[in-house]
């Protein structure tokens, strides 16, 4: 598989304080890389740096002509703003000069009903909004999806469905996915690679080989309980 992303000696500092230190990893086409680590470990900063939103030192090399889709951790949304789902998605279609027919296509992909198109974003449920944001990220046919805690602040059944949706998308559209997540059981189920981050790179590689109890203790600073899922979805 060809490399889609190569990161070398990556450092990010805010006001002289290092928040991400000396990272080295790569991602291949079709990979599902999950970035894990405790709160404040630099996961979101890393994702935003990969997106080009934050200045950095070191080298980030994306494959040429790559198209990225991004799902932020939080959308600071004014709940009373009457911006409909249709207007929200159409803004991306217009900005990315995509085909308006993509609107229906991405709705189907994230399993959102067409009836929700004229609902304002503030009135969508947590799960619907998250699906809407994934649909937004999918417009313009990206090759890479960068998702920051895609299931934060939604209930467990919706969480499961959203991960299923992302996994299906990866299969059907041959996407490379980079996900920030705190849920280790889902890492085992879907990730092909995992990057453990606590400002520095604690580990990197396939989860089965990389996530040892010792590494997790090193990462989270305490014994960590988790369920080990296989890729077929069964639990050990």
């Amino acid at each position, binding site marked *: 598989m060809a490399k889609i992303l190569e990161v070398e000696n990556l450092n990010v500092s805010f006001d002289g304080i290092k928040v991400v230190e000396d990272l080295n990893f790569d991602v291949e086409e079709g990979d599902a890389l999950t970035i894990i680590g405790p709160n404040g470990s630099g996961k979101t900063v890393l994702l935003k740096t990969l997106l080009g939103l934050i200045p950095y030192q070191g080298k980030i090399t994306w494959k040429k002509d790559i198209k990225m889709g991004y799902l932020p951790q939080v959308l600071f949304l004014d709940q009373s703003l009457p*911006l409909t789902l249709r*207007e929200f998605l159409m803004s991306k279609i217009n*900005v*990315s000069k995509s085909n308006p027919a993509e609107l229906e296509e991405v709705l189907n992909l994230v399993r959102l009903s067409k009836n929700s198109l004229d609902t304002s974003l503030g009135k969508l449920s947590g799960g619907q909004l998250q699906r809407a944001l994934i649909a937004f990220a999918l417009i313009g046919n990206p090759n890479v999806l960068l998702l920051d805690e895609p299931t934060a602040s939604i209930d467990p059944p919706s969480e499961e469905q959203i991960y299923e949706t992302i996994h299906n998308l990866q299969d059907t559209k041959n996407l490379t996915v980079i996900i920030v997540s705190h849920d280790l059981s889902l890492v085992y189920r879907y990730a092909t690679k995992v990057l453990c981050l606590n400002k520095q790179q604690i580990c990197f590689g396939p989860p089965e080989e990389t996530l040892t109890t010792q590494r997790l203790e090193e990462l989270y600073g305490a014994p960590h309980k988790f369920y080990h899922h296989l890729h077929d979805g069964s639990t050990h």
Partner: protein
Amino acid sequence: MAPPTSFTITSMTEALTSNFLYIILAIGMASAAGVIGSFAIMRRLALASDPISHVALPGLGIALLLKVNPLVGAAFALITGAILIWQLEKRTGLSTDVLIGVIFSVSLALGSLITPNEELINALLGSYTSVSLTEFIIGLIASALIIGFVLYQKHKLTLASLSPDLAKTSGLDINRLNLYFLLAFVLTMILGLRYLGVLLMGSLIIIPAAVGKNLGRSLNSMLAIGTAAAVLSTGLGLLIAPNFNLKPGPTIIVIAAILFFLSFLLKRKS
């Protein structure tokens, strides 16, 4: 021009005829305020809008002292203010709201000291002034440009207002877009200064758009309702104020506030 003193159909007709350019330009300005206001609210500029308009006063005062068109001085000051805010917005580490509060309030204080006393109230609250044909044409073109810019860039402005990160990752150069938006924003203020003055022009951008936000069921309807509310407040204000010997600015804003209150009640009902 002296405002008519009695409220009669004749005086209203006379006022309408003699103030034709003044009124038409006001409608153009109000339409621009309505559309730009919706995005100002989305960008959370509602609170900053008032202090921003205050920066016009020192420019206006200096222009009056130099005996040049006061709007030219105000325009110079407001464009400088827009560039200043643009720079502040880029530096996320700074507490922009505090800086805006301080710098723009100082502008109001300095401007009040500079502006000749006899002109100060008009500069602060707006007045009836004659509109030359040149001012009329430039004003209408500027209004059309602002409306055209907002409608043409609607999708980009929506994304940039909603989430700068989403906008950037969608391929937008939001830095340039922000500058254009702020310039359109202060251009709207320049157009409205003669009617509403530096104290109240920011309110004509924000209050009607808030009416649109209360009643709209989509961004498009928010834009349409906000524009209609701005035009209605301005039109009614300019018709009513002269007949009761009132200042146009406060009259327009009181009408806009009544519309806001009604929209708030309607929203609660629905």
